């Protein structure tokens, strides 16, 4: 652990794979830039890999003042221990006050290993971050400018705000898609700081034999419109209605956990706490009762239309438009109305 260091930088771990930067790392840069400005400190990025130097400029464009670059042939593919040693070595050297990771499969593998080694706190899956002074009545003091780490907890039934008052850095993983991806400023200037890390043999105990990546077929995060079906759709065959409506609008197909568990559609389409968090311009929920886990993943959509026969369904609590009725009749009506819609 490092002690409280108010001049410490705000850091983002630069998740990249095969030289391609993960969106969440750029989303985090936007947020980290904002936090750093409020704290009056620099924003830094830890970029590890092999032949990744040119990615530095993308992070500088997204707000980094400094990119700490660690290039080593053995870092070409992510492995927990060498990456954890990299991050921890740099934390000990530069003493940042905040370190943020994407809450991806990789980030959720790496961050806890680092936090354990640093013996500092770590908050998983944050959906928002803020800076505030926090009074500590027991110690009759106020912790100045702490990072507020805001996350859903207890199956999404509560929202908790977590702080790490003393044992720094303040570490958090942040969910993909919850921070807006800002436009880069290609004129921004920043510094690339090449760093060396001394690895040990045991860091490479896990050997990668084979890897396989699937192109993301389902792009829920980037969709402007999502039509989602739930358990109320009733069957895999009937899920065609959802595909039809999505096709008519030109939107993506989403699903609730009930629909996925029912085998109506692949898990890649799942929206919600254990699926993808989305915030499209329009979200049409058909036959979805609106369990809290589902709502947590879609309630920030700009417009929500709910179709459900049960007027007490919780989905109506987050809807802007509600249609109480049988989706088997309503969806074909919507398809027809969309095809015949007036053009603006």
């Amino acid at each position, binding site marked *: 652990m490092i002690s409280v260091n108010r001049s410490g930088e705000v850091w983002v771990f630069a998740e990249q794979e095969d030289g391609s930067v993960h969106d969440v790392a750029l989303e985090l840069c936007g947020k980290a830039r904002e936090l750093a400005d409020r704290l009056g400190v620099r924003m830094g990025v830890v970029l590890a890999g092999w032949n990744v130097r040119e990615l530095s400029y993308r992070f500088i464009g997204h707000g980094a003042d400094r990119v700490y670059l660690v290039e080593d042939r053995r870092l070409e593919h992510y492995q927990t221990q060498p990456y954890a040693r990299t991050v921890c070595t740099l934390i000990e050297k530069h003493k940042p006050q905040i370190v943020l990771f994407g809450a991806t499969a990789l980030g959720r593998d790496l961050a806890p290993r680092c936090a354990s080694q640093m013996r500092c706190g*770590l908050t998983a899956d944050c959906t928002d971050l803020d800076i505030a002074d926090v009074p500590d009545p027991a110690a009759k003091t106020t912790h100045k400018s702490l990072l507020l780490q805001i996350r859903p907890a207890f199956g999404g039934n509560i929202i908790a705000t977590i702080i790490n008052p003393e044992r720094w850095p303040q570490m958090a993983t942040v969910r993909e898609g919850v921070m807006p991806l800002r436009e880069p400023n290609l004129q921004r200037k920043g510094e690339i700081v090449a760093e060396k890390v001394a690895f040990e043999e045991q860091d490479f105990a896990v050997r990668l034999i084979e890897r396989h990546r699937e192109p993301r077929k389902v792009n829920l995060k980037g969709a402007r419109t999502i039509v989602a079906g739930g358990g109320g759709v009733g069957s895999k065959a009937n899920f065609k209605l959802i595909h039809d409506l999505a096709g008519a609008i030109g939107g993506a197909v989403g699903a609730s956990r009930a629909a996925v568990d029912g085998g109506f559609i692949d898990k890649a389409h799942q929206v919600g706490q254990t699926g993808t968090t989305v915030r499209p311009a329009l979200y049409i929920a058909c036959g979805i009762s609106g369990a809290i886990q589902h709502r947590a993943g879609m309630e920030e959509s700009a417009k929500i239309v709910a179709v459900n026969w049960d007027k007490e369904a919780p989905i109506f609590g987050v809807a802007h438009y509600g249609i109480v009725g049988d989706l088997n009749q309503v969806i074909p009506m919507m398809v027809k109305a969309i095809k015949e819609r007036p053009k603006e």
Partner: protein
Amino acid sequence: MPYHSIVCIKQVPDTANVTAEAMKADGTVNRAALPAIFNPDDLRALEIALTVRDRHGGTVTALTMGPPMAAAALRECLYRGADRAILLTDRRAAASDTLATSYILSQAIKTIGNYDFVFCGRQAIDGDTAQVGPQCAEKLGIPQVTYLEQLVELRDRTARIRRNVGNGWELVEVRLPVLVTVLDTAAEPRPPAARRVMKYKRARVRAELEAAVKAESEAAAGGKPLPADQLDAEVERRAERLRCAGLMMEQWNLDDIRADLAWCGLSGSPTKVHRVQAIVLTKSGYTEIPATEEGVRRLIRELVVDHTLG
């Protein structure tokens, strides 16, 4: 070649099925009304450990940290085939965050010793952090392999593991010992074996015996408890009988695992909960659209006008 596995399990409130009965009048969740269940990912971790033992020999030790009621989850492990069950319970461990929890579990794992695998579920449904596994691995100084989907091969103390990383998979090779976190898609958990249920339903930890003896003596004496030494003697008598039948589950506290108290509980937890807001189901009101051709057409027109639809 036999392999020894330790499986870390957790009893959790069933947060995935918050029923109407579990909602309070103000719209928040009444945690006490949620049933306690075996954390789903952990059940798969147990299954992988049992499969390793069934194929290669060795042992499976189930370990949990929690209040005495968590002993119910340990019995579930025995029903399914675990060889040994250990409850780590201590009031001084209360309010531990993931870092303190992983310290305590790693001390318990070191106390058990002589292991090849530590299996954990990927994450628990009450916290959803997925942190305790990797943090334990770091504290134990062993490699971690997260998101196991399949244990592909196990030979000469070297495991080949297929991990699902969301947008694809990886096959990795690692020398044991290793800590592995297991996905809920990894294996179908075996059901409890009827014969083992018959045998182990009487298995107890000491805290359960203490509570039972106390309750029985109070009931018998009309609310007046027996002196402490008599209660202790009765607990010891029952414990001995269970021990002889192989039904006494181990119960450890922080002293048993030589834990440094500075790293446990509240003092060992760098994260503090600053504020908790219950999510309240609000009826903020929405525009109700009649389920008619005309109603739907009006809705679509409105969405086009405000540029929601192109």
